C-alpha cells in the first residue's frame, strides 16, 4: 500500500513545491497579471486553514450533513425503487426508460426553485443531493437485479425458495457490485449538489463560505475551504471503497 502511494505522492509533493515557488516569488501573479494576494501559495493556504479552523470546521459540518444525509436518502430511495421495479414488469417498462433518460437532465437547475419553495434551510440541499444520488443508484441496482443467472433462479425455485427468498438470497447479493458502482457515481455528485444548493441559497456551509470569500477576495481562505471540501469528497469515496471491499468479498 505504501509502495503504491509513493509515486503519486511524489508527484503531489513536486507539484506543491512548484506551486509554492511560483506563488511566493511572485512569478505566478506576474504570469496571470493579478495581485499577489489573489494567487495564494500552499503555505498561505495552510496558514489560513490553521487560522480559520473553527470557522471551516463549523461550515464543513453543515455541508457534510447535507452530503451524507442526501446521499443516504438517495441510496435508500434508489434501492427501494429498483426493488419495486423488480417485482413488477409493468412498472419497470413504464419507469426504467424515464430513469435512464432523466439522468441527462441537469437536476441542479431545479435548485433555485427549491430554495424559493423551501427557503434557506437544509431542505433544498437534501432534495438536490438525494435526487442526484437517486438516479445512478436506481439504474445500477435495476441492472444488477436483472443480471441474475436464470439457471440459478431455476435451482433456487426447485429448492422451495419463495419470491422474497429469491430476492434476498440470490438477486440482491448478485446485484451488490452493481449497487456499489452506482453508489460511486452518486458519491461524486453529492458534494457538487450540496455546494450548488448552498450557492443558490444558504447562510452556512463550505459552498456558502467559498462564495462569500470570493466576493470579499479572501482567496486564501477560499482555497482552504475548497481543500476541506475536496477532503470530504475523497473521504466519502474512500469509505465506499472500503465498504465494498468488506461487503463484496467474494470476487
Amino acid at each position, binding site marked *: 500500500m505504501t509502495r503504491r502511494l509513493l509515486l503519486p505522492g511524489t508527484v503531489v509533493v513536486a507539484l506543491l513545491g512548484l506551486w509554492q515557488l511560483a506563488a511566493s516569488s511572485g512569478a505566478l501573479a506576474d504570469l496571470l497579471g493579478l495581485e499577489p494576494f489573489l494567487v495564494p501559495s500552499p503555505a498561505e493556504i495552510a496558514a489560513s486553514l490553521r487560522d480559520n479552523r473553527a470557522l471551516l470546521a463549523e461550515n464543513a459540518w453543515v455541508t457534510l450533513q447535507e452530503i451524507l444525509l442526501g446521499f443516504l436518502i438517495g441510496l435508500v430511495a434508489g434501492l427501494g425503487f429498483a426493488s419495486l421495479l423488480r417485482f413488477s414488469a409493468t412498472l419497470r417498462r413504464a419507469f426504467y426508460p424515464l430513469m435512464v433518460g432523466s439522468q441527462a437532465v441537469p437536476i441542479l437547475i431545479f435548485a433555485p426553485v427549491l430554495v424559493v419553495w423551501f427557503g434557506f434551510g437544509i431542505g433544498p440541499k437534501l432534495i438536490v443531493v438525494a435526487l442526484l444520488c437517486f438516479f445512478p443508484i436506481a439504474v445500477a441496482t435495476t441492472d444488477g437485479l436483472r443480471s441474475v*443467472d436464470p*439457471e*440459478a433462479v*431455476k*435451482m*433456487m*425455485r*426447485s*429448492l*422451495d*425458495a*419463495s419470491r422474497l*427468498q429469491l430476492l434476498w*438470497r*440470490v438477486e440482491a*447479493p448478485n446485484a451488490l457490485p452493481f449497487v456499489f458502482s452506482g453508489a460511486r457515481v452518486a458519491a461524486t455528485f453529492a458534494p457538487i449538489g450540496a455546494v450548488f444548493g448552498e450557492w443558490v441559497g444558504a447562510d452556512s456551509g463550505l459552498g456558502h463560505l467559498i462564495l462569500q470569500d470570493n466576493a470579499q477576495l479572501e482567496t486564501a481562505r477560499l482555497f482552504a475551504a475548497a481543500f476541506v471540501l475536496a477532503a470530504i469528497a475523497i473521504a466519502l469515496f474512500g469509505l465506499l471503497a472500503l465498504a465494498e471491499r468488506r461487503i463484496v*468479498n*467474494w*470476487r
Partner: protein
Amino acid sequence: MTAEANRFAVAAPSPAAGAAAGAAVSIRSLAHSYGELPAIERLDLEAPAHGVLGLVGPSGCGKSTLLELIAGLREPSAGAIEAGGACDAAGRLAHCAFMPQRDLLLPWLSAVDNAALALRNRGARRSAARREAGQLFERFGLAGFERARPAELSGGMRQRVAFLRTLLAGKPVLALDEPFASLDAITRAEMQAWLAGALAADPRTVVLVTHDVEEALYLSDRVAVLSARPARVVEELSAPDPRAADRDAAVTDPGFVAARERAMAALHKGAK
C-alpha cells in the same frame, strides 16, 4: 438397513418418499416446443418408483428441457407428466429437486451454507441448517471445507457440494442434469459408486441425464436413448445390473458391454 448402507444415509426422507406409487415419474404423450421450434416430438417414459431412469442423447436434443419439465420448472406444450404424485407444475416443483448442469454455487456463501440452502428456504435456523448439512461433508470427502468459499474449491468439489445441496432438499424425486460431467474419470467413477450406495440407503426416484452411456447403464434401472431434436425415444434398454456393488466388475461384464453396444448404436441412429 445394513451398517454399510447406513453409512450413506443422507437427509431424512420426506413423507412422500415412503409412498412408492407417489414417488414414480410417468411421462405420457409429451411434446414441447419453444414457440415455433419443436424441442420434444413425442415421449412416453416411466421412471420406476425408487428407481433410476437414465436419459442419453446427442447434445442439444432436449434432455435438459425434459428434465426441467419433469421438475416442474415449466409446463409442457402438450401431454402429461406426473412426478411424486403431482400432475401440475407447482406440485412437481414441490416434489422434485433439480440439479442444473453447472454447480451454481452462490459465491457469497460458504460451502456448507450453499449445501443447506433448501433447509434455510424452508425456515431452518442457520446454525441448525449448518449442523445438518455439515454432517454430510465428511461422507462426501469434503471434511474441513465447510467454511470454504466456492472459489476456493476445485471443480469436482463444487460439483459434490451441489449434489449435497440437491440431496438435502429431501425431495422424493431427483432430476440430475449431467451431475458428474465436470469430473475427471476417476472421480466420476467414485461418485457413481457413491451415488449407488446412497440410493441403496435412501431410495429416491431419479431421472438422470448424462452423455456418458456407461454411466447411464451403471446407475440406471432403465435407459432411454433419445434422438436429436425434436427428441423422441429411439430405444429403451433395461440395465443388466443397476448400481452393482462392484462397479469395475459390473462394467466389464459381457452383458453390460452388449447393452452398451446397443445403446451406442441407437445413439448413432438417432443422431442423424
